[in-house]
């Protein structure tokens, strides 16, 4: 028979590409904040990553014999590109971005079977690849303009990303290092290093340096929170996941801060620094790699939150999102198996 009766005959008009576009839209507030504080780099990285992502996905799909035009339309490669470009430092060389995003699309997504079949979050896996392979470059975070008291022009930003130095010949490393004694670390980085020097979080937070560097990251977090709440309102994401992550992270931070405030920073610090809100509303909510059962999603989210806190506090990397996510991705099949809902009537 060559006829099918599709049931049901009506649909709520949601579509894959619609959902993806909502996600892209929701990143705009955060991207604008990043641009305001950290310069043109973020836009350039977005452009490079998007182009490389779409191109590499089209090539691989063609090689796999699939209809690449239709598959590109669902914008999932673009979403991966955006998430990846937002996660990396703003002025990393172009070839770093291209390597990362191509790895994400080709190896982590397409080679596992394409959309819907990958067990690991592509953007995060690529981030980890780059972090491990190019640790120095990946730790060279651009200072916010408040710290730098200058803004790099668009021309200079393009120059650095594509040619490795500004138009006046200063290399990126020189630029960064020539900076007046202030480090190029993020607040998380700074907090950790100072804690190692046996200072207390409250004292650290009081320093002028800290006060200068935190607002940028704080505002970025707030902007991504706004975008995330928009997505939750539009039902483009499962709100259990962000809530679980934030509860896991904030809860752990709160408990430890309560018992040993001289060693562990506060809950608010954790919630508003690094990529916390970005991770909560954009990274963990990737449905393909998260757990599928309702209970499982709570466990997954809280697990990521706790791991984030643990790695941030005791691990060697300042921001732990990528590792936390990948570790919980590995646990998803087990979580799903043990959290199956009871059959109807078994209550």
């Amino acid at each position, binding site marked *: 028979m060559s*006829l*099918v009766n599709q049931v049901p005959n009506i649909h709520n008009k949601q579509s894959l590409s619609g959902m993806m576009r909502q996600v892209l839209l929701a990143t705009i507030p955060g991207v604008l904040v990043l641009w305001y504080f950290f310069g043109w780099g973020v836009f350039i990285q977005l452009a490079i990553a998007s182009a490389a992502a779409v191109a590499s996905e089209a090539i691989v799909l063609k090689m796999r014999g699939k209809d690449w035009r239709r598959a590109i339309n669902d914008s999932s490669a673009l979403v991966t590109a955006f998430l990846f470009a937002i996660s990396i430092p703003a002025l990393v060389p172009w070839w770093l971005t291209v390597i990362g995003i191509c790895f994400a699309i080709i190896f982590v997504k397409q080679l596992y079977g394409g959309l819907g079949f990958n067990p690991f979050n592509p953007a995060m896996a690529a981030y980890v690849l780059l972090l491990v392979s190019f640790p120095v470059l990946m730790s060279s975070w651009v200072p916010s303009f408040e710290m730098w008291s200058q803004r790099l022009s668009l021309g200079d930003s393009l120059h650095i990303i594509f040619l490795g130095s500004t138009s006046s010949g200063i290399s990126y490393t020189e630029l960064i290092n020539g900076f007046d004694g202030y480090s190029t670390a993020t607040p998380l980085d700074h907090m950790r290093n100072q804690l190692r020097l046996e200072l207390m979080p409250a004292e650290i937070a009081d320093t002028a340096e800290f006060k200068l560097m935190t607002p940028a990251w704080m505002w970025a977090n707030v902007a991504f929170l706004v975008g995330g709440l928009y997505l939750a309102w539009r039902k483009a994401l499962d709100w259990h996941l962000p809530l679980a992550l934030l509860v896991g992270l904030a809860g752990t931070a709160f408990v430890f801060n309560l018992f040993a405030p001289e060693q562990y920073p506060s809950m608010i610090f954790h919630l508003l620094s690094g990529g916390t809100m970005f991770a909560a509303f954009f990274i963990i909510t990737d449905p393909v790699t998260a757990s599928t059962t309702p209970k499982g999603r709570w466990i997954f989210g809280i697990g990521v939150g706790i791991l984030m806190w643990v790695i941030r506090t005791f691990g060697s990397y300042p921001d732990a999102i990528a590792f936390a996510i990948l570790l919980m991705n590995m646990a998803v099949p087990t979580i799903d198996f043990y959290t199956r809902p009871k059959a109807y009537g078994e209550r």
Partner: protein
Amino acid sequence: MFEQLIQLLISLIAIVAVASAFGALLGWTAIRFKLNGDPIVEKIDEILPQTQCGQCGHPGCRPYAEAIAKGEEINKCPPGGEAGIKALAELLGREVIPLNAELEEKETETVVIIREPDCIGCTKCIQACPVDAIVGTAKMMHTVILDDCTGCDLCIPPCPVDCIDVVPLETAAKDWQVPKPSDMIPVRMV
């Protein structure tokens, strides 16, 4: 140097001891938990379709099951089809191979019907049927019990007057098989 030699000796002995301990444990469990008989043949037999047609070269499904357990190829059963080969491959941990090239899989399930006006009552088909699906006796009418017929076609060669027809098994509207959506092209008609 003597000390180093002693250390080397100690580590060597330690490793050998651990290996022997685990080896002994494995050996003991192999004996203690040994399976009696060979239940794999039962499991293989359950997968085979019980058509008893003999196309695999064995006189029935059970002998073929036993042969498979001893290592025979799993691709000799046309009535079982691809699904059967897959199930056997999964059970035994072997590769899925296509049906033996000499054997042909039928497109639809078939049964046989005796054209009663032509039947001479010789009982040759009754003797040939492996599941006793034909009733009749000498010089009396022979009839096929359709519910029992497995479609093995073993009754066709012995019939001296060629009065047995192979017919496809019709599906009633009630048993209409729902097609798999990914195989279908959506078309609507009025």
